[in-house]
């Protein structure tokens, strides 16, 4: 199902959580809402679910306006940050809740519900644990139950709020793959909120980056990394070394030389250079003093400073590790320049 968020604004007591946000979600895609805390990403998710009503704007499921429809009528599967499992119910009862509460005429019979519960437990790899209670599960298992429960009602869209936030790194990685697998298996349109860019970039088909209640950019993980639309995106997604300087006639002028900056208006500007956009070059314009060289798998990372104290993070192939020690000269392959 496609979802259209049209010019939605949401004001909480003091601050605007969403400020004129528009976003189109495609049928069957896995979309990440990425942003720092307070960027409005959770509010956008809750507006979509019907757990908050916007002050302005509208939310459309296909062509149907659901802006002020109740959460109960929207058929969204929602996975909460702390899972919000029903403590007093078994896993099976948790999962079947959405079916159990249907009106008698729409409710599948008992055998059908039991079959569906088994099927979902299998999908999230918890077969046979239906009689357990949530307090008897690990964090990762609770997360899987929450997912199964949200899927039980055949939701039109699956919404996840920081789904892996409370888990340790290993479990998080495996559950990420799991979510991708379940998404691909069910084909349900899925939106998840995260502040972890690695999670967003690895898992999502497209990423929407939010800051201060506005969407800064929407694009595939490659697009937002390689063509950031704003200084915020360039700084927030992926690592970058930052340079302050000035743009004059389509050129960014920094102490160490010039970089192309087509289409950027004249004036003060910032250049963002990705770690992999540096090149080792004996005649390079950038004189860097190396503080540390860290070897990580196939890569050698350089942490250093320029002559005027500007921090530099650069990545090279591992075989360059020795050549990086001491002072090096670098050239810049590519930079993202934005007005400051």
């Amino acid at each position: 199902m496609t979802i259209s968020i049209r010019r939605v604004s949401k004001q909480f007591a003091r601050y605007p959580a969403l400020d004129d946000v528009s976003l189109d979600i495609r049928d069957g895609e896995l979309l990440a809402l990425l942003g720092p805390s307070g960027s409005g990403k959770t509010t956008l998710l809750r507006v979509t679910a019907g757990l908050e009503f916007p002050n302005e704007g509208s939310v459309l499921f296909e062509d149907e306006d659901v802006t002020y429809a109740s959460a109960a009528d929207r058929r969204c599967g929602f996975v909460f940050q702390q899972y919000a499992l029903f403590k007093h119910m078994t896993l099976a009862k948790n999962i079947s809740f959405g079916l159990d509460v249907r009106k008698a005429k729409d409710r599948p019979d008992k055998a059908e519900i039991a079959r569906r519960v088994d099927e979902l437990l299998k999908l999230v790899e918890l077969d046979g644990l239906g009689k357990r209670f949530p307090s008897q599960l690990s964090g990762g298992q609770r997360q899987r139950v929450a997912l199964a429960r949200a899927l039980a009602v055949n939701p039109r869209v699956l919404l996840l709020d920081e789904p892996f936030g409370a888990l340790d790194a290993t479990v998080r990685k495996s559950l990420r793959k799991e979510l991708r697998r379940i998404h691909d298996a069910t084909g349900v349109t899925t939106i998840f909120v995260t502040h972890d860019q690695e999670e967003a970039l690895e898992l999502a088909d497209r990423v929407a980056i939010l800051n201060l209640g506005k969407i800064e950019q929407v694009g595939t993980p490659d697009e937002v990394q390689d063509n950031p639309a704003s200084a915020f995106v360039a700084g927030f997604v992926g690592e970058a070394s930052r340079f302050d300087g000035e743009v004059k006639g389509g050129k960014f002028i920094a102490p160490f030389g010039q970089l192309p900056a087509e289409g950027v208006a004249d004036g003060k500007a910032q250049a963002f250079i990705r770690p992999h956009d540096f090149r080792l070059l004996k005649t390079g314009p950038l004189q860097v003093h190396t503080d540390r060289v860290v070897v990580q798998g196939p890569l050698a990372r350089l942490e250093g400073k320029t002559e005027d104290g500007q921090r530099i993070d650069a990545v090279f192939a591992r075989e360059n590790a020795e050549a990086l020690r001491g002072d090096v000269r670098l050239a810049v392959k590519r930079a993202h320049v934005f007005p400051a």
Partner: protein
Amino acid sequence: MSARKPTEDPLWLKVVVLTLVFAFLGLFLVLPLVTVFFEALRRGVAPALEAIREPDALAAIRLTLLTAAIAVPFNVLFGVCAAWAIAKHHFKGKAFLITLIDLPFSVSPVVAGLIYVLVFGLQGWFGPWLQEHDIKIIFAVPGIVLATIFVTFPFVARQLIPLMQEQGVSEEEAAVSMGASGPVTFWRVTAPNIKLGLLYGVLLCNARAMGEFGAVSVVSGHIRGLTNTMPLHIEILFNEYQFVASFAVALLLCLLAIVTLVLKASLEALQPAHQRLAH
């Protein structure tokens, strides 16, 4: 060497603290209870039973149970509604409502009783109207019930508000997002989560409803066999130097309280372990 844990207090401190606690409990709780038993049964079981079987005593017991039977359900209804509204919803005047709920705790029960006399009494605001329609509130059962409700007002709500606030709204939101209606969400999600707190509130409320003296004393009029509750009956007997009789009724009141507490403890013990963990 010593098997003391690093966070454990030294032995002498434990002894002092525990002695203090038990000394206080003994002096202020156990001793009075024992006295009640002792005084009631001073001349044996027969006179004590006689005092309870006496018609005025029976009337007092009936009235006390009737009052509790009306006041407790009313306060459960009010308490759950108030706690639900305060803990799960945002609205203006919430802080004011919380303060208001506490009012009966901060106002002297005697004042509470006087308020009802001033409102519903013969010289009160509604006095003439009530008399015209032949409705008696003050110096009658309705006044006693009203005063009891007022005094026991905060028990259930006070018990539930922090509990429900701590639990937050995400389980309810989860239920609604799965298509559950408001009432279904309440019965299937909220109610099981507040069961124990509610039970505790009900028991406290009940204990106070049966034991309330001050407010009831003002509105009752002390008409024997008609508007005397157990605490009032005890006082009258005591003032008439009928010590055995007064302590016998007091003993019954104590037993009611003890039954309530035992009931609470056993209901708690009946809770399956996995649910107790969650609380």
